């Protein structure tokens, strides 16, 4: 039996970065907000305490802070006529779980997307001609521009105390920063992190071959910091346990470290943990949502939480699946190209280069999540694509994030995976290898999409989300190009051995690649090309707002958190300043 609860002003599904930001903005505006979170609450002082939080097996390998696939996973097929199989253990990407979501165990890389990334189809059309864009590459403009988002990017950086060096302040190029970035309104809140030795080798070599290295912007505070919410962040200890771990120093910005204190004090805020949302209650006749149905995972009871506004912030898969399960918007059909929900699912392609140095000591265990040296010369459309045969690109970086030995044990090509030779090479190179990452774009393809799986079910018997995905020729050509550039840097670093690690074959869900999944509920200009309008408001239910990287029409060559947060602030701004005064579609066609 379903128990109907007392109505509230807004209900939010998912309490990671975007849900927490929206909860903060709506309670600030005086609304009563109920946030539903599938996972548990987290108490950093206890849950992330030393020494237990330094346990690589428990947190990194066994993924204690991540979503449990036993409850819900996704299925994969590589092509439309393929048979999907469930992802039985998460590997290539790691969905979050619990209050804080993926924001608990991210690394902290806080990049802005390029201005051209936000209006990709227009930009490429203007520079190369509209006919140059392949028919199956279903890229589009976001509907909101970088200039409109700039204050919101700034706001998120201030919230997180990002450590970095600006490269472009109001159009004026700054020495030591990224000369390719969009104009910023100001410097970063904190100075860059202390560069590692490997970072310095990369910086020198990249500069020598005419590239433009800069320190990666990182939400790992380089000094103690008080954010505009009045919450205190500690200084980073370079412990090498950011990704997949909580931060005992409170130096990594997370929803728990930056927003939770404010939300605890907000009288209008209530969070319900272990609450598994199963439906947006949608009235197709009036084209309004009336609330959210969820299962309390502790009691097994089903509840309806009525609300005037429904906010979906359950990451890429959760948002898309809830829209499909609830019948909001037309599901995308990859064979006909009709419909929109599930369209433009994108990932990233991230080949790496390992540089082995026989005479360098690199102390790989010292690092911070976002501690990196980066070149952006080959990202987005920062370079001429006219004769290259692909669009897109990515940054190339040397990241000193962790040297945890279950997972990080580089050996030169040709080394066996076990036995005496493996031991010798592992002991030789563990401390002397720098890894360079190419963070490659993934542009949408007509056949890469999400829908409901016809066979596999979650623990409550509901269809899992099915992804149809593979890398395209554009992705592979782009990745090989980036890999060549990264190898050039490795050689300029005077590495003893430079070993490019290309991404070959069909997409695999086993080895970790990136948790930078995007798309499925994309934003755009009309209901024919998008699920939500430029304010992230559903075209089909004006009181439903969808947050996070599921709204990106395509993926960029950057870590997506800052862009997801920026559009959330942008959406919250429109919601509070316009929608609350006159609840109606914010874009009239």
């Amino acid at each position, binding site marked *: 039996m379903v128990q109907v609860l007392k109505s509230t002003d807004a209900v939010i599904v998912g309490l990671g970065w975007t849900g927490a930001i929206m909860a903060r903005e709506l309670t600030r505006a005086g609304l009563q907000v109920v946030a539903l979170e599938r996972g548990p609450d987290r108490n950093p002082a206890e849950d992330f305490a*030393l*020494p*237990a939080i*330094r*346990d*690589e*097996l428990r947190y990194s*390998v*066994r*993924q204690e802070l991540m979503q*449990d*696939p*036993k409850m819900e*996973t996704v299925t*994969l097929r*590589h092509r439309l006529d393929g*048979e999907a*199989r*469930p*992802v*039985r*253990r998460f590997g290539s990407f790691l969905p979050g779980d619990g209050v804080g979501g993926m924001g608990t165990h991210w690394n902290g890389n806080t990049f802005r997307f390029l201005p051209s990334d936000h209006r990709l189809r227009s930009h490429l059309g203007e520079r190369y001609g509209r006919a140059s864009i392949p028919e199956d590459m279903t890229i589009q403009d976001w509907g909101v521009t970088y200039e409109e988002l700039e204050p919101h990017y700034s706001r998120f950086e201030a919230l997180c105390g990002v450590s970095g060096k600006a490269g472009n302040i109001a159009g004026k190029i700054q020495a030591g920063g990224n000369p390719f970035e969009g104009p910023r309104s100001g410097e970063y809140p904190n100075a860059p992190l*202390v560069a*590692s*030795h490997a970072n*310095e080798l990369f910086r020198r070599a990249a500069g020598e071959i005419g590239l433009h290295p800069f320190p990666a912007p990182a939400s790992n505070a380089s000094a103690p910091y008080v954010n505009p919410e009045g919450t205190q962040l500690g*200084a*980073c*200890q*370079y*412990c*090498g*346990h950011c990704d997949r771990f909580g931060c005992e120093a409170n130096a990594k910005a997370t929803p728990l470290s930056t927003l939770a204190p404010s939300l605890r004090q907000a009288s209008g805020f209530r969070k319900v943990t272990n609450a598994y949302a199963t439906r947006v209650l949608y009235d197709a006749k009036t084209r309004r949502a009336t609330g959210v149905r969820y299962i309390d995972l502790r009691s097994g009871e089903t509840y309806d939480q009525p609300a005037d506004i429904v906010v979906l912030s359950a990451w890429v898969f959760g948002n898309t699946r809830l829209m499909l399960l609830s019948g909001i918007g037309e599901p995308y059909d990859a064979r006909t190209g009709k419909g929109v929900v599930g369209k433009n699912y994108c990932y990233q392609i991230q080949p790496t280069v390992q540089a082995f140095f026989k005479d360098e*000591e690199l*102390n790989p*265990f*010292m*690092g911070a999540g976002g501690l990196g040296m980066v070149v952006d010369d080959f990202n987005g459309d920062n370079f001429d694509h006219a004769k290259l045969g692909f669009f897109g690109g990515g940054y190339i970086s040397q990241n000193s994030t962790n*040297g945890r*030995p*279950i997972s990080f*044990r580089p050996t030169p090509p040709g080394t066996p*995976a*076990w*036995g*005496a030779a493996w*031991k010798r090479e*592992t*002991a030789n190179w*563990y*401390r002397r290898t720098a890894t360079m990452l190419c963070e490659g774009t993934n542009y949408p393809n007509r056949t890469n999409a999400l829908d409901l799986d016809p*066979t*596999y*079910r979650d623990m409550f018997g509901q269809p899992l989300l099915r992804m149809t995905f593979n890398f395209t020729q554009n992705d592979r050509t782009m990745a090989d190009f980036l890999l060549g550039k990264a190898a050039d840097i490795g050689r300029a670093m005077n590495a003893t051995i430079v070993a490019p690690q290309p991404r070959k*074959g*069909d*997409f*695999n*869900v*086993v080895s970790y690649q990136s948790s930078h999944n995007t798309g499925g509920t994309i934003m755009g200009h009309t209901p024919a090309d998008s699920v939500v309008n430029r304010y992230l408001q559903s075209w089909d239910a004006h009181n439903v707002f969808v947050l996070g990287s599921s709204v990106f029409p395509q993926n960029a060559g950057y870590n997506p958190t800052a862009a997801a947060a920026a559009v959330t602030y942008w959406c919250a701004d429109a919601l509070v300043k316009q929608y609350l005064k006159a609840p109606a579609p914010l874009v009239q066609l």
Partner: protein
Amino acid sequence: MLDRRGFMLSGGVLALTQTDATAAVDAGPDKSSAAAQTSAAAEPLYALTAGEAEVLTAVVDAFIPADDLSPSGSDCGVVVFIDRQLAGSYGAGARLYQDGPFQPSNGQVQFGPQSPLAPLQFIQLGIAELDAWSTANSGTPVKQLPKPELNALLQQLESGKIALPRIDARAFFGALLQLAMEGFFADPIYGGNRDKASWRMIGYPGLPATYAKAIRQYRGRRYQAEPRSIADFL
């Protein structure tokens, strides 16, 4: 004194008093090699049979042979680690989606293992199949294979040249190698990596991992410290 493999082969797999957790505490930061020797004695088995542990001991010691860099895998507690992992929630299939239908992976490794078996049963079946294959093809069970033959057998398993009748041979090999490496490199609190042997081998300092000053001070210079485990801080 028998080495661990010899001890296991002699059938001496019985419960002893010292757990590995206490061994790690006793070791302390300055008493390095004594702990490895004292804890090389047998540990109780929670999930595997003595026979299964013997096969695993042979395999783990082929993966991680004893040399001047470290003791053998089993002397480092890797079999103990694997047994405890398989006896616990991991072995039971925690955090593993196990709903059907199940389809054979047909060599498509991109989807990950698709077996309906929980890891404990999967590894047990794999051990039995491998031992049966070895006996059928060379007349010798795995634990009695001379080292060169055992290495050759494992190489064939790794490269997909051996098909086991009831199990995905490459998936089995992959799971076994992964577990062995976890046992060798994880924090010693889980029963493997005794005396932090692997951490000493590569120069990983373990805890406490606060390097706010060291990252600048040791730029380009080796940072050396007695490696410390979670247990050393309790």
